[in-house]
C-alpha cells in the first residue's frame, strides 16, 4: 500500500468549471493525475474507492469479483436510484443490477433485438423520423430549443416504436422520467414518479398479453416465459435507458460541435468522419458522469498495489477515465478523426456493457449528419454561458439548447 491513500478519503467531485462545461470536474482530473485509485467517502459513512484511471477502470468492470448488486453497494449520490427497485431489493427482472448467471439469463433474451444487423435495419425508419423533425423545425422557423424539437423526441419515438409503447403518451413518460432521474428531486418525488411509470407499463404489458403486438415487448410476451412483473421492469428500463441517454448525447454533442467550429467545419466537409465523430463525442462528453458505473467487491482484490476489501464499493469516474492521457493522446482535445476513439468506456465495459449501444450509435450518426446538412449555418441563439447544464442528473447534458439559423 502506498502512503498517499492512507490520508483523508475524498468525496465524489461533481463541480465543473462553468467556463468549460465539456470538461470533467477539475478535482476528478486532478485525482486521476495524482492517485487514479483513491479512497472515497460516501454520504452514509462508508469508505470505498474511486477509480479514475483507464486501465484500472477496465479491470474492475471486467472482473466477476466485482458485483452490481444494490444490496451490496453503497451509493455515492445524495439519494439512491429509485428506478432500480425499492430499498435493497431489485425489481423483478431488473438485470442491470444482477450478477451472472441471473443477469445473463435476462440479457440473452434481449440481445438478439439489439445486434449490429438488427439496428441497421432500423436505419431507414430513423432517417425518416429525423427528417420529419427537421422539417418541423424548418417550418417553425428560428429560434428553436433543439432539445424539445430534435434531441429528445427522436430517440423517444424510436425506442417507443421498437418496444411497442404508444408515442402519444410521451409527454407523460418524459416528464415522469425527468423527475425520477433528477438527483435534486427528493426520494419521495422520485419514488412517486417511478411508481407512476411502473403502473403505466404494467397496464401496457397486460394489454399486450391479451392482444399480442409485433414489437419487442410483444415478442417477449409470446417467445419467453417472463412474468408480467419482469416484463414491466424490463420494458421500463429499456424505455428510460433508450431515450434519456441518447437525447443528452444528441443535444450535448451539437453544443460541443457548435463550440468547436474548426471541428464542425471538418465534419461538414468530410463524410468519412461520420462514424469516428460519434465515438469521439462519446469519449469527450462521457454523459454517464456521476457515481455510475459502480461495483461492490465480493472478495479482497488487489489492484494497482492497493487492497480493495470484500464489501467495499468502487465508483468508476468515467469522465476522467475517458480523458486518461495514458490511453488517449491530448485527451482534452476534441478531435473527430481521432484514431482509437472507440476504445472509450462511455458505454461501460464487461458483461454489463451497454445493451443499446448500436442503437445509440446509429441515432447519433444519423442525427448529427442530417442536422448539419439541413441547417449548415446552425448556431446558438444565446451566449454559450447562458446554456444551463444538467449537473445533478444521472446523464449529463443541457437543459435547453436554443439555436437559430438564417432562413433561405
Amino acid at each position: 500500500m502506498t502512503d498517499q491513500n492512507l490520508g483523508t478519503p475524498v468525496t465524489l467531485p461533481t463541480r465543473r468549471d462553468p467556463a468549460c462545461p465539456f470538461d470533467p470536474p477539475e478535482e476528478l482530473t486532478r485525482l486521476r493525475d495524482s492517485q487514479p485509485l483513491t479512497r472515497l467517502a460516501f454520504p452514509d459513512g462508508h469508505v470505498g474507492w474511486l477509480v479514475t484511471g483507464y486501465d484500472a477502470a477496465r479491470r474492475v468492470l471486467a472482473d466477476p469479483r466485482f458485483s452490481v448488486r444494490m444490496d451490496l453497494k453503497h451509493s455515492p449520490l445524495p439519494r439512491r436510484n429509485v428506478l432500480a427497485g425499492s430499498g435493497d431489493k431489485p425489481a423483478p427482472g431488473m438485470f442491470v443490477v444482477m450478477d451472472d448467471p441471473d443477469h445473463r439469463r435476462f440479457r440473452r433474451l434481449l440481445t438478439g433485438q439489439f445486434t449490429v444487423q438488427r439496428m441497421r435495419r432500423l436505419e431507414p425508419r430513423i432517417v425518416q423520423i429525423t427528417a420529419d423533425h427537421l422539417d418541423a423545425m424548418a417550418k417553425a422557423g428560428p429560434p428553436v430549443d433543439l432539445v424539445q424539437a430534435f434531441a429528445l423526441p427522436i430517440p423517444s419515438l424510436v425506442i417507443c416504436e421498437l418496444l411497442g409503447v404508444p408515442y402519444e403518451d410521451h409527454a407523460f413518460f418524459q416528464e415522469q422520467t425527468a423527475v425520477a432521474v433528477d438527483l435534486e428531486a427528493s426520494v419521495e418525488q422520485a419514488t412517486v414518479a417511478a411508481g407512476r411509470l411502473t403502473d403505466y407499463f404494467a397496464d401496457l404489458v397486460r394489454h399486450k398479453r391479451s392482444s399480442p403486438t409485433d414489437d419487442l415487448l410483444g415478442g417477449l410476451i409470446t417467445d419467453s416465459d417472463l412474468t408480467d412483473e419482469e416484463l414491466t421492469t424490463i420494458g421500463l428500463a429499456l424505455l428510460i435507458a433508450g431515450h434519456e441517454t441518447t437525447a443528452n448525447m444528441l443535444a450535448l454533442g451539437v453544443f460541443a460541435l457548435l463550440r468547436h467550429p474548426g471541428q464542425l467545419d471538418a465534419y461538414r466537409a468530410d463524410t468519412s468522419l461520420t462514424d469516428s465523430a460519434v465515438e469521439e463525442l462519446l469519449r469527450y462528453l462521457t454523459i454517464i458522469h456521476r457515481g455510475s458505473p459502480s461495483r461492490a467487491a465480493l472478495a479482497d482484490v488487489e489492484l494497482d498495489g492497493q487492497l480493495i476489501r470484500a464489501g467495499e464499493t468502487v465508483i468508476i469516474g468515467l469522465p476522467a477515465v475517458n480523458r486518461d492521457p495514458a490511453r488517449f493522446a491530448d485527451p482534452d482535445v476534441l478531435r473527430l478523426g481521432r484514431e482509437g476513439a472507440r476504445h472509450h468506456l462511455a458505454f461501460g465495459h464487461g458483461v454489463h456493457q451497454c445493451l443499446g449501444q448500436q442503437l445509440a450509435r446509429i441515432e447519433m450518426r444519423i442525427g448529427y449528419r442530417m442536422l448539419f446538412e439541413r441547417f449548415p449555418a446552425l448556431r446558438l441563439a444565446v451566449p454559450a454561458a447562458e446554456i444551463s447544464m444538467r449537473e445533478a442528473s444521472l446523464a449529463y447534458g443541457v437543459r435547453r439548447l436554443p439555436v437559430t439559423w438564417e432562413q433561405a
Partner: protein
Amino acid sequence: MRVITDQDRCVAAGQCVLSAPDVFDQREQDGVVMLRDPTPHPDLHDAVRDAVALCPAAAIRAQEGR
C-alpha cells in the same frame, strides 16, 4: 493468425462486428458472436486485434503467427 471465440462468455455487444465485419458476425436469434473467418487475411489482423481489445467480455482470442 487464428481467431477463437467463446460463445458462452459473449454478451452480444457487437464491438467485434463493428471492428471486423468480415471476421465476426452475430447470431440472429440472440446476438451471440459467430466466426465468419477463423484464419483472416493479414490485412484484417489489426482489426481483429482491435476486436480483441474492445470485446467487453474477453470472449475473443487471436493466436498470432499461424
